[in-house]
């Protein structure tokens, strides 16, 4: 009896080890492919700069306007660049049948979701880590505040968690890349809204009691959508 339970514990430890190994392998594969070609990151970065440029002239970002719209401009830029990255990262899997290869691997399907989610998140964070100092330099605003960085982390987690799931869906449809923003934006509206409000609060130096509600909302959103995506991902990749 004791031996059996030890064996079972051994098996479950091994399988959970497999689960994390599988996630790590997928993340590693994505990062490695990316750091050899820089296809995705360069596209996201150049695109973000273009979006900033458009905002600069569309909104006439002078000192006065800047104060009220910085958070909004940043999040709009991240959201647009994010869809570009999410689309591309899933399209690469679909194009040469890589997704089928991944599905054949003897690992839990949700490991594939978490692997893609983490690598998408890493790409988004890298882009944000470059855009933030650039924005700071271009507009002479200090964006390096721990609070703001926390909000960006939480917001990006929420955005990519649901974005990875929806991108896996949209690449399998006829309309493909056109569809992702249409599916993603209405669902991610809450996360963008809370992130803009919280970022704006930190930039204005508001009282923490005003910022805590959007932050809690972001945390709640992250948990709900990671859990839901984890549960339904099987249905997206099933053949």
């Amino acid at each position, binding site marked *: 009896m004791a031996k059996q339970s030890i064996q079972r514990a051994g098996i479950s430890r091994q399988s959970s080890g497999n689960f994390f190994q599988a996630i790590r392998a997928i993340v590693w594969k994505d990062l490695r492919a990316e750091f050899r070609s820089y296809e995705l990151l360069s596209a996201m970065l150049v695109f973000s700069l273009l979006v900033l440029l458009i905002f600069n002239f569309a909104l006439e970002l002078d000192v006065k306007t800047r104060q009220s719209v910085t958070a909004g401009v940043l999040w709009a830029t991240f959201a647009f660049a994010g869809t570009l990255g999410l689309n591309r990262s899933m399209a690469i899997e679909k194009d040469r049948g890589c997704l089928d290869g991944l599905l054949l691997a003897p690992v839990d399907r949700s490991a594939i979701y978490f692997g893609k989610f983490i690598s998408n998140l890493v790409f988004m964070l890298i882009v944000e880590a470059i855009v933030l100092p650039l924005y700071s330099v271009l507009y002479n605003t200090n964006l390096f505040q721990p609070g703001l960085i926390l909000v960006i982390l939480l917001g990006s987690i929420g955005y990519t968690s*649901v974005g990875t*799931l*929806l991108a896996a*869906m*949209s690449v*399998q*449809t*006829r*309309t*493909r890349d056109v*569809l992702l923003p*249409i*599916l993603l934006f*209405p*669902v*991610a*509206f*809450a*996360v963008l*809204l*809370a992130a803009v*409000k919280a970022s704006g609060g930190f930039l204005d130096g508001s009282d923490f009691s005003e910022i805590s*509600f*959007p932050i809690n*909302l972001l945390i*709640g*959103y992250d948990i*709900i*959508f990671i859990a*839901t995506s984890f549960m*339904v991902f099987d*249905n*997206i990749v*099933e053949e």
Partner: protein
Amino acid sequence: MNSKPLALKILDAVSLLLLLAAAYLAIFVAPTEKVMGDVQRVFYFHIGTAWVALVGFVFTAGLSVIYLVTKDLKWDRIQVAAVEVSVVFFLITIILGSIWARPAWNTWWTWDPRLTTAAITELIYIAYFMLRQGIDDPDRRARFGAVYALIGGLSAPITFFAIRLFRTIHPVVIAGTNAEAEGTFSMTPEMRSAFFFALFAFTIIFIDLFWNRIRLGETQDKVEQLKLKVTM
């Protein structure tokens, strides 16, 4: 081709009568509101359509779970029917609200939490149809549709809370009060009866349309199968 069941024919007729009766009550029986005047009569149909559409959307999220567990295409047909009828009713709600808002708030539209959530919810379910249109395989279409309806159904209430970060001017007539609301009023007994009658009428009309739409879905599937047979 199976013909329309008698119960559905009767329900069709009853729905039409109820719609006329609800309109009669709202226009002729309910008293005119003192401040807003006749435009307030829009309220009966506004709430009636909103009520069935929202119940329909909640129902849809439940159907997603049922489909994902059972994988029976019957539930997918029912879900499409529920979403389609609810989307139409919700669009009517938004348009009626706008008609009321023009004189009451002096604007057709404002980015109030309820209005914004309504617009986003409507967009989610329009996206639902665009997603389905892009997929040919019926099983995959059903699975993706169910997943998206579930995600959308979860995000709508969160969106509502998120927009609460900004203030609201939408009146809360049924329960609770909002000090900043514009256009609030209290109902007289005649208003109340017209109101509850409208709720009842729209519930029956919804069920009638829903049933008809499910039958249409069944026919569509049959046609698709016949087409496959012909081409083979």
